[in-house]
């Protein structure tokens, strides 16, 4: 190809949201060392919103890649940027209060958060497997630091080290998968690989190995069974709002990336791949929900529940192209309610000196708004209408049934009965548990209050009008589906 500076300028405009976030990140670094700490959350939040706006500002474009096929900027890509940025914005509502309560003035979190989101965007929107990998490592490093943020605390250290070691382990599988795909086709570019699909099946053993390793790398990132075991330990050691971010933003990016690659490869024609995903979905749903029932520690409970939710999303992924909208929708809804739940646990953590469930007894009377908000998130996670969690589950089940995965949907429905049990149990504890020792109850300050309010309104609004998100998703997506079809 001929080099032309005009191309670079065009490409830079195309990836303007990423460049903008980069500038915001650098600015935050400078603000950190120049001691302008107090306005860092605001700048970070505004930066993320700005990037989101920049992403959807251009006219809707059909599939188009910047930097010579490296990164997708059309189709669903702008929406991915919006969703990922929003997951960051939601998290920022809870961070300042949490760090203040924990008495740990660590301001790198905002910088790292921005860089993590840049990595997520790169991974989710990559159209070249190398960019996928670079994006994954970029945000993973930020997440390792998040896990080990409180470096003087053993639980945090443990979390950081475990996540790092196992994450590196899993990355190796992913990288091996990518190398083998390159070996098979001679390309790392997704569209080129898709165009040379015939080369893939020349050597089925190698093809399945490569794509299998690729899937495994992502299954680790989304903590699907049997690659889930780091999740409870890491989440319970990570600072709580950041654990919420870890469970949502990174998983959303990983699901989008995995889904994009698999759909480009038209994976539903290989029954074996679908079976692997389906089995991981079933086992994640069962394991996550059953083990969560007996958890007394809220962070561990949410960790196991997040394994279960991964199962539901995988269920949607099994449906292939038709389920992809449901996957993204589910992850976005899950992002809203999970960041809310983790945020509330974070607020209560310091006040109640623990994340033990029994400490929450009687909160329904002592802290009515707090308990009401938590109940709302829990009801939504349990998939009870009219909350958004119901709609997301509904979409995923419909997609699974539409693609003939009836058994999967049935298991999904059955396991969500179990899930309802432990979510409701916490509500019962809050409202009906007798509180023996009167203590101070958790309170909102204005940022957390605003955040919780916003998330709660979104849960209700999207529960009643899911089209607000589904409609744009379908509109943006419609291009990409036909583009994929054209590639074959």
């Amino acid at each position, binding site marked *: 190809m001929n*080099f032309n500076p005009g191309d670079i300028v065009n490409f830079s405009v195309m990836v303007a949201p990423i460049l903008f976030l980069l500038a915001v990140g650098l600015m935050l*670094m400078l603000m950190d*060392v120049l001691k302008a700490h107090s306005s860092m959350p605001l700048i970070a939040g505004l930066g993320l919103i700005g990037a989101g706006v920049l992403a959807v500002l251009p006219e809707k474009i059909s599939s188009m890649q910047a930097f010579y096929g490296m990164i997708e900027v059309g189709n669903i890509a702008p929406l991915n940027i919006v969703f990922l940025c929003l997951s960051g914005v939601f998290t920022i509502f809870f961070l300042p209060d949490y760090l203040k309560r924990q008495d740990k003035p660590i301001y790198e979190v905002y910088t790292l958060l921005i860089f993590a989101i840049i990595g997520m965007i790169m991974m989710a929107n990559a159209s070249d497997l190398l960019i996928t990998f670079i994006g994954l490592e970029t945000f993973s490093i930020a997440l390792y630091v998040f896990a080990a943020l409180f470096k003087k605390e053993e639980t945090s250290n443990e979390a950081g080290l475990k996540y790092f070691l196992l994450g590196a382990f899993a990355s190796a599988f992913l990288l091996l998968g990518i190398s083998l795909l390159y070996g098979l086709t001679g390309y790392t570019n997704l569209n080129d690989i898709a165009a040379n699909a015939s080369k893939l099946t020349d050597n089925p053993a190698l093809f399945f190995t490569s794509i299998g390793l690729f899937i495994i790398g992502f299954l680790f990132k989304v903590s699907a069974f049997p690659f889930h075991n780091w999740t409870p330990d890491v989440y319970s050691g990570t600072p709580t709002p950041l654990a919420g971010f870890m469970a949502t933003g990174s998983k959303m990016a990983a699901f989008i990336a995995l889904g994009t690659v698999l759909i480009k490869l038209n994976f539903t024609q290989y029954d074996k791949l679908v079976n692997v995903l389906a089995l991981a979905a079933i086992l994640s749903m069962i394991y996550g929900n059953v083990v969560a029932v007996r958890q007394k520690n809220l962070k561990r409970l949410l960790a196991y529940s997040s394994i279960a939710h991964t199962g539901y999303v995988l269920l949607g992924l099994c449906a292939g192209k038709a389920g992809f909208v449901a996957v993204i929708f589910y992850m976005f809804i899950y992002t809203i309610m999970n960041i809310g739940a983790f945020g509330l646990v974070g607020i209560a953590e310091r006040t109640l000196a623990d994340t033990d469930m029994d400490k929450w007894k009687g909160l329904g009377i002592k802290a009515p708004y707090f308990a009401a908000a938590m109940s709302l998130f829990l009801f939504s996670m349990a998939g009870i209408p009219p909350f958004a969690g119901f709609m997301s589950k509904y979409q995923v089940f419909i997609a699974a049934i539409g693609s003939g995965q009836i058994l999967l949907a049935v298991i999904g429905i059955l396991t969500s009965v179990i899930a309802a049990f432990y979510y409701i149990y916490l509500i019962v504890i809050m409202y009906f548990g007798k509180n023996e020792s009167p203590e101070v109850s958790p309170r909102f300050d204005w940022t957390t209050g605003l955040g919780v309010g916003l998330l709660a309104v979104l849960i209700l609004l999207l529960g009643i009008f899911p089209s607000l998100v589904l409609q744009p998703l379908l509109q943006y997506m419609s291009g990409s589906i036909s583009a994929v079809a054209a590639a074959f």
Partner: protein
Amino acid sequence: MVAYFGMFLIIGIAVILGVMLTGLSGIIGPKRPQEEKYMAYESGMDPVGTAQERFSVKFYMIAMLFILFDIEVVFMYPWAVQYKELLKFGWFPFLEMLTFIVILFVGYIYVYKKGGLDWD
């Protein structure tokens, strides 16, 4: 052979320079011997001992920062070598490198202000 003349010249100069510099300092430099100075790594590391020994994390900090900023230079070499060629694109290549250096510079300020370069 003629094609490789430049290479042999560089090797030659390197060898001469190396021998000359260390030799000269050995001959004319002042000698105040200390125990540390006779160790393989003058910075205080004991070269012989068990592998499980603990040593300061600061070594890693310095090493990491060195690699970070050292690798950046690798990107600048080809740019500098090709700069004349790149001039046909106007100011663009220059601005590109400038952006790169500015990003690096922000990182440098951050490291410096955070005390990453202080030993104590």
